[in-house]
């Protein structure tokens, strides 16, 4: 079996589910013959036709609104927002309607849609193409926010998102779209949505991250190992709802935690995780929880972006200072 990249795993999951369920319909800009600007829908237009891989007019609120109407009719729309930076016109629809439809009709109408968007920096993209605003959506009751960090998890989590009866924001870390390859059997097996993944077991410190930063976090764990530190590494994957059990169990074992996210620091998902650790795991802590994050600045353009994105060095240094705290 050939190894595939994360973006190819997305394509594989979409194709599998479209084959399995004729209610699955893709909507987006340039997703048809062009196969999407990142090629996430490559080949699907030819395979499934224009009725199921729908190139739409260029309007993001429309994309979300269409999907809400289609979902209310029992279809499974999967929308591609070309970049997360362009999802904001759709926020009204996602927050005011997608997230609330089940609740406001007491279950009569539901919104089983998936909104996919590539996000994050590091690919030398133009302005507005590199932000990480997952916390914005994670704050909204009624949504689920999922971020894969490997081809296998992209495949299994996207399948799960498409089979979920509620709206899922599925954010794809485009910096690692093509840097890792894995064997991903096309077996149609979904992964659970409300669950963290322990990527590496360890006993001295817990490193918690998601998305593209998992890549640097795993490298940091390897470097720490060379310094005699055993780091446990957790891929949060499900930003909302959060699987705090896995995180709390790990922190109970290690007593120390560093949270790494590319998104801006203040009011980020790291703050929520820290808060729950404080509420429910304070007595197992041997040091304050630290965060290695992007800054509360506008995401810099490509010349400076590497100084914004959490580096392996910053993660290692943060872990060492956590370990050296009393």
């Amino acid at each position, binding site marked *: 079996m050939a190894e595939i990249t994360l973006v190819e795993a997305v394509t594989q999951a979409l194709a599998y589910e479209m084959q399995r369920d004729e209610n699955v319909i893709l909507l987006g800009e340039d997703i048809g013959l062009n196969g999407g600007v990142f090629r996430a829908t490559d080949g699907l237009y030819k395979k499934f036709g224009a009725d199921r891989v729908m190139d739409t007019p260029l309007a993001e609120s429309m994309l979300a609104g269409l999907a809400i109407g289609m979902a209310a009719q029992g279809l499974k729309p999967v929308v591609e927002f070309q970049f997360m930076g362009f999802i904001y016109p759709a926020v009204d629809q996602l927050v005011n309607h997608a997230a609330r439809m089940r609740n406001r009709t007491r279950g009569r109408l539901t919104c089983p849609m998936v909104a996919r968007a590539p996000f994050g920096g590091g690919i030398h993209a133009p302005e507005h193409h590199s932000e990480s605003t997952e916390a914005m959506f994670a704050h909204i*009751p009624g949504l689920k926010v999922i971020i894969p960090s490997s081809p296998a998890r992209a495949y299994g989590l996207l399948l799960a998102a498409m089979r979920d009866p509620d709206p899922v924001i599925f954010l794809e870390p485009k910096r690692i779209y093509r840097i890792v390859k894995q064997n991903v059997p096309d077996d149609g097996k979904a992964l659970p949505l409300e669950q963290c993944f322990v990527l590496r077991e360890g006993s001295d410190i817990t490193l918690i991250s998601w998305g593209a930063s998992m890549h640097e976090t795993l490298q940091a764990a390897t470097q720490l190992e060379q310094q005699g530190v055993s780091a446990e590494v957790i891929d949060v994957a499900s930003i909302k709802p959060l699987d705090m059990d896995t995180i709390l169990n790990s922190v109970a074992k290690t007593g120390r935690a560093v949270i790494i996210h590319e998104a801006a620091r203040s009011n980020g998902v790291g703050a929520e995780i820290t808060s729950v650790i404080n509420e429910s795991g304070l007595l197992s802590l041997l040091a304050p929880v630290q965060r290695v994050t992007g800054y509360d600045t506008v995401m810099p353009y490509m010349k400076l972006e590497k100084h914004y994105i959490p580096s392996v060095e910053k993660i290692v240094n943060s872990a060492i200072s956590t370990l050296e705290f009393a």
Partner: protein
Amino acid sequence: MTIIAEFSIEYLQCLDKNANLVGDLPSFAKDNAQLINLYELMVLNRTFDTKAINLQRTGKMGTYASTLGQEAVFVGIGHAMKKTDVLVPYYRDYGALLQRGATMKQILQYWGGDERGSDYEECREDFPLCVPIATQFLHATGVATAMKYRKQKRAVVATGGEGASSEGDFYEALNVAGQWQLPVVFVINNNQWAISVARQSQTGCQTIAQKAIAGGMPGIQVDGNDVIAMRDCVNQALQAARTGKGPTLIEAVTYRLCDHTTADDASRYVPKEDLDKAWQEEPIKRLQTYLETEKLWDKNKEDALIKQCQQQVSQAVEDYLNIEPQAVSAMFDYMYETLPKSLQQQRGLADL
């Protein structure tokens, strides 16, 4: 320079403001029972509306958006729709919704602060009243996309005010509906006021109907105080939509004889002379005059109808006031199909 495209906007009216017949009656209106039915529906609507405002004023219900003066618009829509069509209404659209099978009790329940008011028992596919302006037009295009995908011969009606026609979602909906030739009818209730912003301050367009042209569909302006024209216009648009002939935008010209909602005081900005003039053109009186002229209606029938409507509304109010409160846990129970663990914990801590 040459002209490469030209457009025109038609205006439809059957009864003029003095209830004189203008041109031919549409075929449905040659059935007297249909006309009387439209009249009864409008009177029921107004009776309900008056009572709803009263419930808010006496503290028995929350903020309510009145439909006074605009009954013909929504009654006409509901009357033209088939059960298999789908309604995507905005917050003032009771006339259509009640014909779809939603109940007066549930509309009161909704404005009374109880989500179960939108769990309609009969029209399961219809959307609930939409508050965020113009967002509903896009839902309608989505529903219509599903119908087209499944090759169904049915259509969607979405309603909104003329203020909504300034929103991006409105234009986005027209654009995609026109491009994909979706089976959808957009009806703009041009009641001259978006809260306090007058129609002439809302857009530089001569008509709202002409906004259809940019979307690639026909636009028609109809006298929204003339329920016969209204019903006919929506019916024709629906038939076109159901048979693959694409979408239509209808601008129904009427007048908001009420406040925006019970939280508003329109006397702060509506010129009294305009309001007085609008009362002379309102839809119920107009049809009543016509029916009387045609010897189809008289005082006895009117008295009997008023009594019957009041009884129906009183029963709905009684039913509304006797609704068992929701369990506090209901706020959690419809967030997701399966409640995530973190929410289960919060549910456990709530004051149930």
